[in-house]
């Protein structure tokens, strides 16, 4: 129940973090909020030889305007995101999802970048970023690169981050006008990892039909899932129970490998994801109708 030994370094800016990461070799990891990594280290499921602590990098904690959308620094705590006025105004989905992450005592430490880089398929923010068509800024020894959320998540706890790279920012492009969103999840205890969770974005055309619908699902596969068939069949439809039921069926059909464990079988989770998608879409459309 105690972490194994490691060398500890505090990075004061991103350059220093990248340099330290390179110097400390393959077994070094960055430490963001630590709310997943430290639990894994306590159980010795992770045994990094060195930790590069990012918590003193103040320049990575921000939520700011970006081309009509939002740029979020990797070390932004979930507790900050859930209280951020700009995020609440532009992307209430992010705020709603941040509130669903663990409990307040977790969210005071957990970070946006940490959640994305850790890539737990049960986590909320990866699914939300996928639904929002976000892109991530990554820094490494060779410089910066940008990668789309859809290309970033590779499998259970697997991303396209190479050794020596640090995720520094998530950018969320502006939504269409008349868009609404919702995040819903079902967990056995409030704040626990969801058995299934759904982020939905619905944008309406002037005539009231669906211009675009997007879904991001968590806890139902090795990565967050974007069920494109369900999204495609909603385009041009009139919002309503018929449309949501059809999308729900498409979501269920799209999920072939939800995890199966003592808390819920694969079949149960698949069905639950369908039900949550139906509800999230209805709520998102309702909210879209309230936006001019």
């Amino acid at each position, binding site marked *: 129940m105690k*972490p194994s*030994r490691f060398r500890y370094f505090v990075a004061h800016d991103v350059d220093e973090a990248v340099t330290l990461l390179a110097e400390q070799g393959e077994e070094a990891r960055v430490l963001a909020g630590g709310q997943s990594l430290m639990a894994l280290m*306590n*159980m010795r499921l992770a045994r990094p030889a*060195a*930790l590069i*602590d990012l918590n003193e990098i103040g320049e990575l904690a921000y939520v700011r305007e970006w081309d009509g959308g939002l740029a979020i620094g990797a070390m932004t705590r979930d*507790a900050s995101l859930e209280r951020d006025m700009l995020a609440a105004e532009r992307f209430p989905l992010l705020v709603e999802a941040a509130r669903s992450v663990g409990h307040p005592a977790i969210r005071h*430490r957990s970070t946006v970048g940490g959640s994305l880089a850790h890539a737990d398929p049960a986590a909320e923010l990866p699914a939300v970023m996928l639904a929002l068509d976000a892109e991530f800024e990554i820094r490494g020894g060779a410089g910066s690169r940008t990668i789309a959320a859809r290309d970033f998540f590779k499998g259970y706890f697997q991303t396209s981050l190479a050794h020596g790279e640090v995720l520094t920012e998530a950018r969320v492009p502006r939504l269409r006008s008349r868009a609404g969103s919702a995040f819903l999840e079902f967990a056995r205890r409030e*704040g626990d990892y969801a058995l299934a969770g759904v982020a939905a974005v619905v944008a309406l055309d002037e005539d009231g039909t669906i211009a675009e619908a997007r879904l991001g699902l968590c806890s139902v596969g090795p990565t967050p899932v974007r069920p494109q068939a369900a999204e495609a069949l909603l385009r041009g439809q009139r919002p309503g129970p018929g449309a949501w039921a059809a999308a729900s069926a498409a979501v269920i059909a799209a999920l072939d490998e939800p995890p199966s464990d003592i808390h819920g079988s694969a079949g149960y989770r698949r069905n639950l994801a369908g039900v949550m998608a139906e509800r999230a879409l209805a709520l998102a459309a309702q909210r879209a109708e309230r936006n001019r």
Partner: protein
Amino acid sequence: MQEEFVPIRVTVNGITHHMFLEARRSLLDVLREDLGLTGTNAGCEQGSCGSCTVLLDGKSIRSCLMFAVQANNHEVMTVEGLARNGKMHPLQEAFWEQQALQCGFCTPGFLMTAYELLRENPSPGEEEIRHALSGNICRCTGYHHIIEAVKAAASTMSQAAAVEPSDTVA
């Protein structure tokens, strides 16, 4: 190896400590083993149970999910910091009066979480209390008495604040 030990300065319940710590040790273990503050309990050590909850710069955190060296230049408050001059905090009084504990293992975590709640929201409704305490697990009480105790403490504290609007109940 040199980088495995780190010098830190941390203030715990108002007292500043200078320590030289192995980096891998949790804040939880250092509070308990080095500072003798055994009120903070080690439960699951993976962030699920809430029994190790303390305040870091006034905000609740899991002390099992933070390395002690990360508390360098920060302020920590543990359950031992609640009582003043040998007198229990109104929350502690209320837990006693309402029989909000049986074995008591989870109690420090509940107290620190409830302390933060009442500071931010002096008269929470039942739903708000349940929501705030949802990250703390109690295996004895069934929670009802804990909820009642938080309500009672809120009422005592707001009455005290109305009589004397100074810091007597903080």
